[in-house]
């Protein structure tokens, strides 16, 4: 129990520091558009990339502490992630995170964290579109959306 409390405390402290560092990073990016462009095409994407960096560092630090990742692997992940920047849109971000998660054990959690809300939004968008089509009696179009065809 004590060990678990200590671990939670440590995790919370790390989370707190990472949150603060992410905030600082976002402020710096706001003041430096050139540096921000190296992260992503739009301010919203740039903020999201900083959030990804936060998750990535948290995963790396936790894994290093738990001896589930070597320092060399940590360096490799950081290098690969930075090589994926800048991000052009949401889909690009997820595709690149997926690529990173395939190549580096333990990074799947980061991908899932960002993929889940996107997938949920996408599902809602498709359902809404299907609903619109059905209202207009366009059954075929609704089916196309359900099948995930390009025009959907």
């Amino acid at each position, binding site marked *: 129990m004590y*060990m*678990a409390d*200590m*671990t939670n405390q*440590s995790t919370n402290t*790390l989370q707190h*520091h*990472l949150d*603060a*560092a*992410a905030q*600082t*990073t976002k402020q*710096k*990016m706001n003041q430096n558009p050139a*540096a921000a462009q190296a*992260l992503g095409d739009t301010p919203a994407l740039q903020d999201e990339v*900083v959030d990804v*960096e*936060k998750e*990535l*560092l948290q995963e*790396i*630090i*936790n894994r*290093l*502490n*738990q*001896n589930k*990742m*070597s*320092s060399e692997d*940590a*360096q490799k992940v*950081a*290098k690969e*992630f*930075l090589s994926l920047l800048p991000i052009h849109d949401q889909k690009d971000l997820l595709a690149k995170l997926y690529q990173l*998660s395939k190549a580096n*054990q*333990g990074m*799947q*959690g980061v*991908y*899932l*964290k960002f993929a*889940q809300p996107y*997938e949920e939004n996408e*599902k809602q968008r498709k*359902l*809404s579109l*299907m*609903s619109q089509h*059905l*209202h207009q009696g366009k*059954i075929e179009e*609704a*089916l196309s959306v*359900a*099948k995930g065809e390009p025009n959907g």
Partner: protein
Amino acid sequence: MAEAPTGVKTEVKTQTGQPEGANAATAAEAKAAANNRKTAGALTAAITSTDARPAADLQTTLGDLARGDVPSTPAEKLNDIAEQQAHAGLIDGGTPAVTLPGPLAIEGSKPTDQPKVNEDGSVDAVVVDETKGEQPKQPDLPNTIDAQIVDENLPAVRETAVEQYNQTTDDGAPAISAADKTPEQLAIEAAAEKDRLAIEQAKTDLANLTGNPEDAAKIIADDPENAQTAEEILAGQTEPAAVNKNATDALAQLEEKAKTKPLTEGEKKKMGVIKAILLIIATLPLTVPLVAVGGAVAAGVALGGAVGKN
């Protein structure tokens, strides 16, 4: 006990920084584990602001890590400072020439009082005799407790992965080979499979349901038994996405049963209600919650009303 140059009695205690996994088979493994913790500590230190300096931004920290230029931990910095002071001839007394950084600064202490980091990552904490007054603070070492950190967003997906992992084919072979796969990989595959099945289900539902949603609502509203069934399926849910899930799950259960034995008339009727609900859901704007809440309004009437309004 050792006699410090200043005459102050000091006792050196070692906190055994036990390498990750007490069963570490070899010294090399222990050293690697200590090195990993050291890197984790350095990264944590970099993103931690102190009185002496602000935290590094995440971009810089990742960049440093990518270049293999991981910043020193506070404890390492202390050793460096002690060494500098020794070289500067200040080790034997007087005010330290270098101010110690942040929370590790010990007012009035001598360089010889500084904690020292050993090769294996453990730290010699110096405890000064009480007559000296102030005790040195312990360095803020990275936590080394081994525990599984589970992302709270993942348990459900992992559960699905485990379920799939446990499934077997007809000939008894595992449905999914877990060889060389991590739980996270299994989770991703399971999530992808779940999405595929959901799309297939949506296609089937839509292909079967080309009727009029008002008629579907009427089927429910006109028959108290159907209204009761619909209410059970809604289970207090009013958001279309949640209702859709309830209905899809109920349909899947019936379809599964139908594979092994014929459905009863009641079950066939239930299937009709479920399909009617699915049709209604598909034609509702997703932003409009259903009216049926807590059984206050009969589900069928509520569904009919909701469709009528739209």
